């Protein structure tokens, strides 16, 4: 094949291994994929921290975002920080409790105690609203929480 005898036709490059390569990539992405569950209705820029832990058991985590509504929702909800529970924006902080109870109801009974609430809060939000949310979480006895944050490279070496 490679020897040029006639020198007329170029040898074909074998593409037989192409599917294998593509499948390899495909499996990689299939494994790491987390389907986007809901679209963000509030803008969240995470605060920085160093003592981070990865959240395990994604199915046991319920998400709660707090921040100013995105441009799309500003006409409806204004620019003041709002609480997003799954795919809707809460009008009152008391809705957090029913939200937690609903989320807990979706889990198996044995796992209900392990439920974690991930607080995705914008760094500019004031503590007043956060402590109200925390009170609601305590009332709903959702005591395991997680403050979502980014890695702080400047401080991590200390």
């Amino acid at each position, binding site marked *: 094949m490679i020897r040029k005898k006639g020198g007329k036709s170029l040898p074909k490059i074998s593409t037989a291994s*192409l599917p294998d390569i593509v499948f390899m990539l495909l499996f990689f992405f299939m494994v790491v994929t987390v389907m986007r569950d809901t679209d963000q209705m509030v803008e969240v820029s995470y605060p920085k921290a160093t003592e981070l*832990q990865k959240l395990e058991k994604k199915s046991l985590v319920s998400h709660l975002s707090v921040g100013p509504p995105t441009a799309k929702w500003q006409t409806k909800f204004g620019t003041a920080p709002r609480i997003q529970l799954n795919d809707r924006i809460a009008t009152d902080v008391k809705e957090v409790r029913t939200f937690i109870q609903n989320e807990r109801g979706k889990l198996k009974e044995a796992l209900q105690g392990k439920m974690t609430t991930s607080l995705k809060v914008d760094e500019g939000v*004031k503590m007043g609203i956060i402590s109200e949310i925390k009170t609601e979480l305590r009332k709903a006895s959702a005591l*395991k*929480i997680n403050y979502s944050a980014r890695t702080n490279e400047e401080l991590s070496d200390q």
Partner: protein
Amino acid sequence: MAKKKREAPEINASSMADIAFLLLIFFLVTTTMDVDKGIVATLPPWVPEQEPPEDVEANARNVLEILVNANDQLLVEGEVMDIKDLKGITIKHITNNGVDPDFSLSPQKAIVSLKNDKGTSYGRYLSVYDRLRAAYNQVRNDFSMNTYGKAYDDLEKVDQKKVREVYPLKLSEAEPKDYSGGGQ
């Protein structure tokens, strides 16, 4: 090129790549690589009545008092402090063992009290909280290195619990007060 005697006819696999590409692109688009990372914390359970003040007998020296005001400024034990020094002073407080009369008697008795204003930003709150956790993590890690010769994270669960009992994280968070009137 020349085929050998007799072979089973090959299945044309040239479209396989196309199909795989299609799937690949789908997963590429739907992938979100960011892993949810954060500081794990446990809230105190809710008590219906007004909570009785914890540890009434807690000496003033055992409590490291941290105040954060609405301008995100830090007051530690009555003195203005930069957040860079917070980890150091917390470690000093925990590991004091009664040496300095201003700091705790023993790690078991040491309490960190964190008070916010309603107008404090969440970013500042979390960075303060992060520094406190960093202090405890370092103290625990040092203890674990000296006792077990291993990092805290590499210890067995039982030993981790023992280390936690030696250096318990006693963080008391008061309800934010509205000193400035800036919180909504």
